[in-house]
């Protein structure tokens, strides 16, 4: 509302940029004029993150690792190279490190500095991942955080927190749910929810597999 402090009369509906919109437009105009940025490229980037890259990409990687032991080994050894096999890669050359959950160790990712996240395979992070509360609390009390998400782990399971950086992006590999023997990669991928690849949840149980809606086209 701060942008509406003048021109409030109702003679006609003025266009108003909020102060923040005007700041963004200012930067954009300057960057385009100086040739640093191409407006069409901006649209392409937005489209990519809004419609093309998302958790289903990560889910595809996880499902492949569940069904293809050789791929899982390659993913463990060199995450960046393994996801590149499936056509995924960082724009900025960052490394992807796959953290496999086991009965002994549960993995959880965070970026305590800002919001570094495995964008190339998960898209943009959820709001809570970017919140100061999550970023600060997860290193202090990971089990407390997990219980907030409804995830209670046995005492015998160690929780390991991975602090992402601009160079290293971690992807959690949740454990394959029980009673999914013989499932196709596509069906398995439907069980790989976004939060399970951050580590705040486990893969969706087979009995709760999302319906056809989740498949899309």
């Amino acid at each position, binding site marked *: 509302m701060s*942008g509406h402090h003048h021109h409030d009369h109702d003679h*006609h*509906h*003025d*266009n*108003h*940029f909020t*102060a*923040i*919109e*005007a*700041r*963004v*437009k*200012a*930067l*954009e*105009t*300057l*960057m385009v004029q*100086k040739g*640093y*940025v*191409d407006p069409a*490229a*901006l*649209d392409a*980037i*937005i489209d990519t*993150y*809004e419609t093309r890259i998302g958790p289903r990409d990560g889910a595809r990687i996880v499902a492949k690792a569940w069904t293809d032991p050789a791929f899982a080994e390659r993913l463990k050894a060199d995450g960046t190279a393994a996801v590149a096999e499936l056509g995924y890669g960082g*724009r*900025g050359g960052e490394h992807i490190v796959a953290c496999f959950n086991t009965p002994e160790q549960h993995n959880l990712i965070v970026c305590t*500095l*800002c*919001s*570094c996240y495995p964008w190339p395979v998960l*898209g*943009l992070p*959820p*709001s*809570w991942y*970017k*919140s*100061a*509360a*999550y970023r600060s*609390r997860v290193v202090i*009390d990971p089990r*407390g955080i997990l219980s*907030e*998400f*409804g995830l209670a782990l046995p005492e015998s399971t160690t929780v390991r927190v991975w602090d992402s*950086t*601009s*160079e290293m992006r971690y992807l959690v590999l949740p454990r394959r749910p029980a009673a999914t023997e013989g499932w196709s990669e596509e069906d398995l991928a439907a069980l790989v*929810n976004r*939060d399970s690849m951050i580590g705040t*949840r486990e893969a969706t149980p087979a009995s709760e597999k*999302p319906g056809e809606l989740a498949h899309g086209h």
Partner: protein
Amino acid sequence: MATEQHRIFDTASPCGSDLAGFVARLHEADNADSATFREPWQAQAFAMTSALHERGLFAWSEWAQTLGAALREAEAAGSPDTNETYYRCWLVALERIASSKNLADDSSQLRYRHAWEHAAARTPHGMPIELKPADFAHGADEDS
């Protein structure tokens, strides 16, 4: 997707001073998560950063430091811990890195900001907002 997520938070039981607020915030954030960007300016600021980085104008580590500093300042200033605050910090960081990398100095940023505010104010509703030379003559003294 959103409905599937809600259940998780319902099972949480607050057991610390700030936990209730934390859960409420997660819940709120998750409800709004279906849209990647809440408002177009957030998408624009994000895309500009990505494009400038791809052109090699700054390293991502420099970006992370700049954004991290802006986030810490917002937190210290008591800004609400929301998506809106996050993207405001993103914009602050982008303005700073544009300035520190000599892509656009502070005075140019300010001049263009005022010009766009002026252009928006003089353009009738429904018409495209375009920047004209005259907008630069008016903008500077309007807000100060």
